[in-house]
């Protein structure tokens, strides 16, 4: 039994998230340059020989062969580039694919790039693209976008757990507070529970401030074999577990419509061979595309029993200073959610936190991180575990 996937992150880059002037090519170039520059000893010891590009291609600007755009923009020409698309979990799946490529020995240095450019399309077209990753036949054509599907989940959750509405608001308040300390975050603005509860309803009970924003942005990490990581840096961050899962696309087809089996499977797989358990994690990045998603994630990841995430949230356990800091970078809610970039952005956060480079938002003594990335309303999910060398 191997104790770890023998791969480590040796560099990472991140653009700002939000409404950016840069187009997708400029974002790609910028984030790859940053990732390369972040490698302490540079990349002279070996060139990147595989790239995994996570993007939905939002807006349809390059529906096929986006790899060639990366080559052109970032000067990575000739090496195999694999585009990974699992909706909002594209980044997590690209990370896992890269770890596998390195772990298998096929790649000696892999680059994972996540990218989305979402704000440069007209509003109506954007709303079309926001719904392309859910079930079309029964959910979308019954009048639901993702906000609607998560609205149903939130309604069910609140019916089962009466304090949940306050907890949902607190998720937004906490993640906005965390975002204040993240220079890359889209929103660096504190909000109150009252404001969350009073916001216009999008899909009752979810209001505007329960929803993550539409964002541009990119993130990238460089992955090397663990036993060669010290050629690049003294402080690699090891990928010590990965897990992934899938589920029925439509919520109605799932035996338990209020929890995500894909997350549970991914977490089980990631922890199966990990050298530590949940209790010793320093920080947790969960996929909070809507506030309800953070509560569901905490339960599916095994941090609480069904309904228990309400208390964890309301008693401060998930704040940066709490027992299990959740989304210290602001999460999707405040940091922003450029679809393909999100899973890679989580890896960036794990990397800088474990290396104690997170500045104002640093979790003291952070050694172990869990990253949780979800596609759509739970049809795909990944869990990645990072640890100091």
């Amino acid at each position, binding site marked *: 039994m191997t104790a770890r996937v023998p791969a480590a992150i040796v560099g990472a880059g991140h653009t700002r998230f939000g409404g950016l002037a840069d187009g997708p090519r400029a974002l790609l170039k910028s984030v790859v340059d940053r990732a390369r520059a972040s490698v302490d000893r540079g990349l002279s010891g070996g060139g990147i020989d595989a790239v995994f590009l996570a993007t939905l291609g939002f807006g349809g600007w390059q529906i096929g062969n986006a790899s060639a755009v990366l080559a052109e923009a970032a000067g990575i020409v000739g090496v195999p580039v694999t585009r990974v698309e699992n909706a909002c979990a594209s980044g997590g799946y690209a990370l896992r694919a890269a770890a596998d490529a390195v772990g298998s020995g096929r790649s000696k240095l892999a680059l994972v790039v996540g990218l989305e450019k979402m704000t440069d399309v007209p509003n109506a077209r954007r709303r*079309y693209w926001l*719904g392309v990753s859910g079930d079309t036949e029964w959910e979308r*054509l019954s*009048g639901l*976008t993702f906000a609607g599907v998560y609205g149903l989940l939130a309604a069910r959750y609140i019916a089962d757990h009466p304090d949940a509405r306050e907890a949902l608001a607190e998720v937004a308040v906490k993640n906005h507070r965390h975002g204040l300390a993240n220079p890359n975050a889209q929103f660096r603005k504190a909000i109150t529970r009252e404001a969350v509860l009073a916001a216009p309803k999008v899909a*009752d009970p979810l209001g505007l401030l329960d929803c993550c924003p539409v964002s541009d942005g990119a993130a990238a990490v460089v992955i090397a074999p663990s036993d060669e990581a010290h050629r690049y840096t003294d402080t690699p961050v090891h990928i010590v577990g990965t897990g992934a899962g899938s589920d029925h696309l439509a919520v*109605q*087809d799932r035996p338990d419509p209020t929890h995500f089996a894909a997350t549970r499977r991914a977490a089980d797989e990631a922890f199966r061979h990990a050298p530590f358990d949940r209790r010793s994690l320093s920080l947790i990045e969960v996929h909070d595309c809507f506030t309800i998603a953070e509560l569901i994630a905490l339960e599916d990841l095994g941090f609480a029993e069904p309904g228990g995430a309400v208390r964890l949230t309301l008693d401060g356990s998930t704040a940066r200073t709490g027992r299990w800091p959740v989304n210290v970078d602001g999460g999707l809610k405040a940091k922003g959610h450029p679809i393909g970039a999100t899973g890679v952005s989580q890896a960036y956060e794990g990397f800088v936190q474990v290396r104690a480079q997170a500045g104002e938002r640093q979790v003291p003594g952070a050694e172990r991180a869990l990253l949780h990335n979800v596609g759509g309303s739970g049809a795909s999910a990944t869990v990645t575990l990072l640890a100091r060398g």
Partner: protein
Amino acid sequence: MTPPIRAVRVWGRLADPQGHRLTAPDEDEFTMAIAALEHLGDRSAPTLHGVGRLPEVFRWGLSGALGRSVALCEHPPGAEGWKAALTEVAGAASTPSIVFGVDGPGHLLDSPGPWPGFGAAAFALDLREDPGLRERLLAWVPNGAPTIEAAQAIVDALAQPPGGRPTLDLAGWAPSTAGPGGADPEPSRHLERWAQRAVSEGAYMPEARYREGIASHWRLAADRCPRCSTVTFPVRGWCRGCGAADDLVRFELPRSGGRVEAVTTIGKGGQPTEFDPLVEFGGAYDVALVELAPGLRATLMMTDSPPGTVRAGDRIGTVLRRLYPMDGQWRYGLKAVLPAAREAPGPAPDP
């Protein structure tokens, strides 16, 4: 024993500023004809008599789509068509009939009002229950009114026979605001109007996939696997338990009694783009996750009840309604209704 007088069901629920009732945005001659058909129950092989220009869906092989044998007779628009339809009905003593009509689909496009509606109505007749109906049908004089008024006039004439048994069911009607002969030669204009309101493309559902899904979307068709007993809904052509594709036993889940597990109200901006016109004209709407039978769920839009009035735990029924337009035609499927919403006020049944 006197059979109870059936309530007249009024499904149009929107009123324009003048107080005229319009056909609801998700209803038309097809949904009303189907409602009338369902009202008849399982009585065999009815004939559908359509007055006016009918949409393509009627020519798709309705018997297969509905899972029961039906015949279709098309009649010209207006008084001539009504007369022809009723004459044929009067001659068909042995089978029940559905009579339905529609004004030109673009009928009201240019009139002010909350919805670019048009008149549509349907009712069911069964001469086996009341042989006296035949004479009254033949005696009815066409008055040239638009569809709703015409249907109402027919129903009034038939439902008040001196000393006769009132056996006529009006399954759906809504008065039109338009004058007679409202000439709109282009049936596609209503769709175009919707398409113009929808400022972006919506999710694309090819007609082949839509028709493949009709059995479950219209009738809640499910498959029971003889090998592992798993019930698969919506039907896929194979068992979701064991993958077997042979000998699946097709049946239909109950159309009423489903339980709302969760409901959300979609406010402005929360809707997919293809529902922009629905929100523009009708405001917010509810969507429910409904448990139809233990462990079997469907996501259904609610209709006929104000948004925010449905609660988890409510029991619902289902009605066939318009869902969305695509490729120049309306697509149909079941929506959920609160049972109370189906029963408009009418004469109380005999105790």
